[in-house]
């Protein structure tokens, strides 16, 4: 096991501790809380009136924003290693990343012109 993996020991301990802690809280709650089942308690909340229909609808724009986000998330894969190694990449790396960012921004401008970012 190299030093790289050894430093994840703390992370592993932390994950176990976090799961244990939440499990403990929920388990303790289960032991001490009352259970008095009543049918009306399990009706989905709808501002006091009886629920109508099933799930609501949501705006399709949320979906488009999620798609746009994917672009910027993939960009992060390139820009983080670039930022960390910028000193050694130097001038060449800078020009390359500028071209990449410009292309990416063109995509955003296209989406903007198509009215994707307009909410109302």
């Amino acid at each position: 096991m190299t030093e790289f993996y050894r430093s994840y020991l703390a992370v592993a301990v932390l994950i176990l501790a976090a799961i244990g802690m939440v499990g403990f809280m929920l388990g303790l709650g289960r032991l001490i809380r009352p259970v008095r089942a009543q049918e009306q308690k399990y009706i989905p909340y709808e501002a006091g009136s009886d629920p109508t229909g099933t799930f609501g609808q949501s705006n399709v724009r949320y979906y488009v924003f999620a798609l746009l986000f994917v672009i910027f998330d993939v960009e992060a894969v390139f820009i983080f290693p670039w930022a960390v190694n910028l000193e050694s990449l130097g001038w060449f790396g800078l020009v390359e990343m500028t071209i990449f960012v410009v292309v990416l921004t063109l995509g955003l401008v296209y989406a903007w012109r198509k009215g994707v970012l307009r909410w109302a």
Partner: protein
Amino acid sequence: MIPILGADPLFRDGIDGTVVLIVIVKTIIVFTVLLVAVMFYVWFMRKVIADMQNRIGPQRAGPFGVLQTLADGIKLFFKEQSSPECADPPVFRLAPYLAIIPAFMAFAIVPIGGLVPVAGRQTYLQLADPGVGVLWLLMMSGIGLYGVMLAGWASGSKYPLLGSVRASAQLLSYEAALGLAVVGVLVHSGSLSTRTIVDQQAWTGIGSIVSQWYWLPAIGAFVIFCISAIAETNHPPFDLVEAEQELVGGFHTEYTGIRFAIFFLAEFMNVITMSAIAVTLFLGGPAGPALGFLAADSWVNVWVMPVFWFTVKLLVLLYATVWIRATLPRLRYDQLMALGWKYLIELAFLWAMISGVVVVGAREGWNRWVTVPAAVAGAGIVLAVLWACLPRRGEPVEEIR
């Protein structure tokens, strides 16, 4: 070992019983401190907002009402749990875990103090320094998003669903800006490790506040980071996820008792973690003057002073979040999305490129007084071109349906 990873010397000579024990003790301490900090922060927030609004605020439980949060927590333990009949039970139960475990985990990379000797070993006052460093924060806030999203979806109810869809779009948008703001520091530090970033901002006298700490060379990134961090933690004025007037409680409308408490715990824990990360990246973390009249290796200067300076900086940022919460009204949803996509992301990109030019210029030995204005001018031209490409106000755009 690659030096940029800056790993903890505790793990240098392999793992034995002492090392495991130290790690476990550190984990327990960080857990306790984090929980107590949340308790204190909620009290602090309520007290400060009460002062700003000429009220008294909590005062009954414990001295000055300090134990109010604890009392609320204990009360929630005794409350009945219900899950709506349309809910998806396994996911409904899983969601609180997904919300709070990343909140705990994200704090692990925060350097609270310096190098300390424990039981004959040297270790950092920091839980973990994994190779991915500050990306750990982005990973954890990405997983935390699933907690919010699944909680709303699994409730099988309309308000939570709307709340969680809103939450996902908001968190996604600001995560992009948050990541790009971090890039503004990474180009200067050349390392992802929070420990290395903090070491580069070491205290060398009062001048190091401007010469060493990254808030000044990365001032644009600092501002963008703070705005996106507030949005990322659903803190007012960006708390549209749980806008009471529109969505009742947002994604946790159907949660009761201790599960509800867990969502709140996670939310406030995220505020503390984000402030701590801002301190780490921009304000030098535990860097600060040591007590000169004591020896440099006395226990006060090794253990206490770094933690003290870290806490002071953290409290300043936490006070700022409370101040913002008490001052600014909530944004409208379209304003929120416009701020994220039309301004923060573009500005963060420009800032990353300007810092890139500055860093490369310093390495190549170009004149700083020429490269910086040239970079800013270049950014200005890009902005002007961008502006010219955009639809004018009132100009009809092709609608998507």
